[in-house]
């Protein structure tokens, strides 16, 4: 079913199009990047204008039929990745008194639990700064919340679902990511929940295109770095993803997937690499003894990688002019560490920094080659490796710019690693 995003005019009435199932590829995806307020995944604008106004009774009738096809609350989208579980939750803010009375107790408690806390258990976090307020989805208005916790703690999450009798709500749980497949039976046995499994890349693309089309009162979803090569003047600037195609989408999670996107429905996975966020965290933990991503980043921000790496100037004594390799370029990552003396002279922070730089530059390098091979100039980096990781973002922006002599532009999105989960939620509301 496809819906127009409109503001609710009065209670209980939804204005919408004929709720016929439309092929996702044509109408579902927000192909237009209009900045209409609170627009959800909309069908083409052309259709909406012609069917908007009808009489009250017809609308009420249609609203009823829509209610039947609209899934019951709660509305979740889940993305179970290699390292993190990403959860998006839609909190309805337009609940009528009537609805509230009818509301089942455990649904209420779930809503309260999620929205009145920003931390859950020991490792669950709600990213409040990413919350999208006053969003209209499927004719309801509310806030979209973004929650994450380590995949490692999924059993605890399932236990909680069981305790809150989630399964009695008879809601479909749309889940994507490898874990949707890996943990499918655990969901059934531990929480009596049936997962609706979705492809992770489909959800990713869908989520990216949707979030970008939503105009929030906050900062622009898409941004880039101006003057990436000049640390004193490097600033974050908004970017409108109008006419975004073709686009290279680089998803940096535990591992990396690189997608070439030609239209809402036409994309392919170009390649991937196993040197991703999981590698950074894993190596950092081994080298420095840290145990969280935040710790690793903190160390990296304090370190100096040039002591760990062997630079061109360490080999040449200066630049390698003939091939345009400046003396400060890294010739060999960790190349100085073969010497015992040097190993003893570097700090944990230096090692963390070197790990970050190595992984980031490698992703940049592979991305650049893919962009050249696919003839695409715009690259969007997403994934939770970039969460609170300005260092990597700037490095990527720099690398893209420098090695391509300004031909490639690196773009970033605020909701980084949540797009898969958003895509899953959209599938729940607008099944393809």
């Amino acid at each position, binding site marked *: 079913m496809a819906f127009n995003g409109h503001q609710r005019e009065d209670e209980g009435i939804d204005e919408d199009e004929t709720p016929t199932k439309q092929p996702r590829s044509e109408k579902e995806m927000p192909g237009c990047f209009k900045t209409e307020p609170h627009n959800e995944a909309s069908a083409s604008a052309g259709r909406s204008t012609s069917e908007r106004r009808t009489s009250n009774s017809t609308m009420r009738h249609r609203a009823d039929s829509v209610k039947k096809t609209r899934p019951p609350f709660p509305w979740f989208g889940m993305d179970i990745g*290699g*390292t993190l579980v990403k959860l998006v939750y839609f909190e309805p803010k337009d609940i009528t008194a009537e609805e509230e009375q009818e509301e089942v107790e455990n649904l209420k408690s779930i809503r309260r639990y999620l929205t009145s806390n920003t931390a859950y258990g020991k490792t669950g976090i709600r990213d409040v700064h990413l919350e999208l307020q006053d969003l209209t989805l499927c004719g309801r208005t509310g806030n979209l919340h973004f929650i994450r916790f380590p995949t490692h703690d999924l059993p605890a999450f399932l236990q909680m679902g069981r305790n809150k009798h989630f399964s009695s709500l008879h809601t479909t749980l749309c889940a994507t*990511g*490898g*874990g949707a*497949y*890996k*943990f*499918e039976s655990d969901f059934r046995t531990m929480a009596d929940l049936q997962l609706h499994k979705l492809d992770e890349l489909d959800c990713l693309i869908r989520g990216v295109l949707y979030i970008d089309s939503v105009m929030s009162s906050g900062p622009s979803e898409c941004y880039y770095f101006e003057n990436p090569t000049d640390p004193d003047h490097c600033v974050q600037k908004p970017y409108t993803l109008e006419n975004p195609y073709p686009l290279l989408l680089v998803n940096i999670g*535990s*591992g990396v997937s690189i997608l070439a996107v030609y239209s809402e429905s036409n994309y392919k*996975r170009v*390649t991937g*690499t*196993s*040197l*991703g*966020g*999981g*590698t950074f*965290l*894993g*190596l*950092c*933990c*081994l*080298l420095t003894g840290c*145990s969280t991503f935040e710790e690793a980043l903190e160390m990296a921000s304090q370190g100096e990688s040039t002591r*760990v*790496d*062997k630079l*061109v100037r*360490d*080999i*040449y*004594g200066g630049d390698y002019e*003939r*091939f345009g390799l400046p003396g400060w*370029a*890294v*010739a*060999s*990552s*960790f*190349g*100085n*560490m*073969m*010497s*015992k003396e040097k*190993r003893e002279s570097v700090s944990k922070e230096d*090692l963390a920094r070197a790990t970050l730089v190595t992984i980031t*530059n*490698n992703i940049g*390098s*592979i991305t650049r*080659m*893919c962009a*050249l*091979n696919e003839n695409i100039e715009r690259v969007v980096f997403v994934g939770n490796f970039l969460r609170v990781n300005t260092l990597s973002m700037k490095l990527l922006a720099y690398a893209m710019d420098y090695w391509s002599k300004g031909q490639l532009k690196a773009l970033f999105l605020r909701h980084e690693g949540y797009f898969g989960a958003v895509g899953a939620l959209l599938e729940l509301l607008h099944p393809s």
Partner: protein
Amino acid sequence: MAEFVRLDSSTSRHTMDKSITLPPDEIFRNLENAKRFAIDIGGSLTKLAYYSTVQHKVAKVRSFDKATKEAASDKLYEISVQEEVTARLHFIKFENAYIETCLDFIKDHLVNTETKVIKATGGGAHKFKELIERKLGLKVDKEDEMTCLIKGCNFVLRNIPHEAFVYAKHADSEFRFQTTQPDIFPYLLVNIGSGVSIVKVESEDKFERIGGSSIGGGTFWGLGALLTKTKRFDELLQLASKGQHTSVDMLVKDIYGGSYGSLGLTGDLIASSFGKSATADKEFSKEDMAKSLLHMISNDIGQLACLYAKLHNLSRVYFGGFFIRGHPVTMHTITYSINFFTKGEVQALFLRHEGYLGAIGAFLKGYITYSRWRLPGSRAMYGCG
């Protein structure tokens, strides 16, 4: 401790990079006792190629026809022993930390009163120029690293039989040596030293460094030393051959519970290198970490090589440099990686004298200069100028 290769080629420990017999070319023959050598000083290793003659007695047998015998006592066979001199090029490498030892070797064995100039290439030719000139009392004639690399590569591909080979882990014979062929261009050379240089070679004189990577042999050595506390490169390789990377790496099946069917990603593929090592509650064995590291670097280099090969429409990739050292895991991983990323369209080939290409090239450059001086009008050798 410096690594030494025995001087006598026949008892060399490293049979892969045995000394090579120089083609019986006029130019080489006339330089009987001249000591010629060239040095390639890279980021971690200094490579030396030096010329010397091997003299040996060869028995030549001449048989006589019975019918032509005049008397019963006449011999049927005549055996004469002759001295034969073969020109050979020998190879030896030193860790840069021991460059002074290398220079001592050169001073003691290779320099004579006639030597005025030493041919040097690699970054160190610039960096260590003064040290060399001071220690040896010779002028350093610097040659560009890429030029020597390609010159050396072209030379071995064209003249040394069974130099290049394909590695097929599960085939009857693991090593499929290639015969020399006249038509070697174009090709991609991926030189894996401390770092990686990727060179597109279109003809004898037309080549271009089209890219590179900082994740190379130096990374394996450095990270390996940090993670396993093992200092020697060869020891790291030994550890790797015994390890199980699956305890350290996050595979597709660790995320999906199986394969990611719709994308054709089988469960055993590595989704995230070292992806499991973030858990604080476990100790990982040196062997497993070394193996994971080897896979990580080999796959990455293979992938990058494919991306460049694709962009430049090349179907043959040769791997040079001292990272590989005939290690089965490395060769298998790189070969697999190339096959995977190009769906079999690009061929991965390895070279026996992998890390000595630059030194060979610099040596040849020395010959050109020398030969032009000694033998005016002699033809340019092997098309290199």
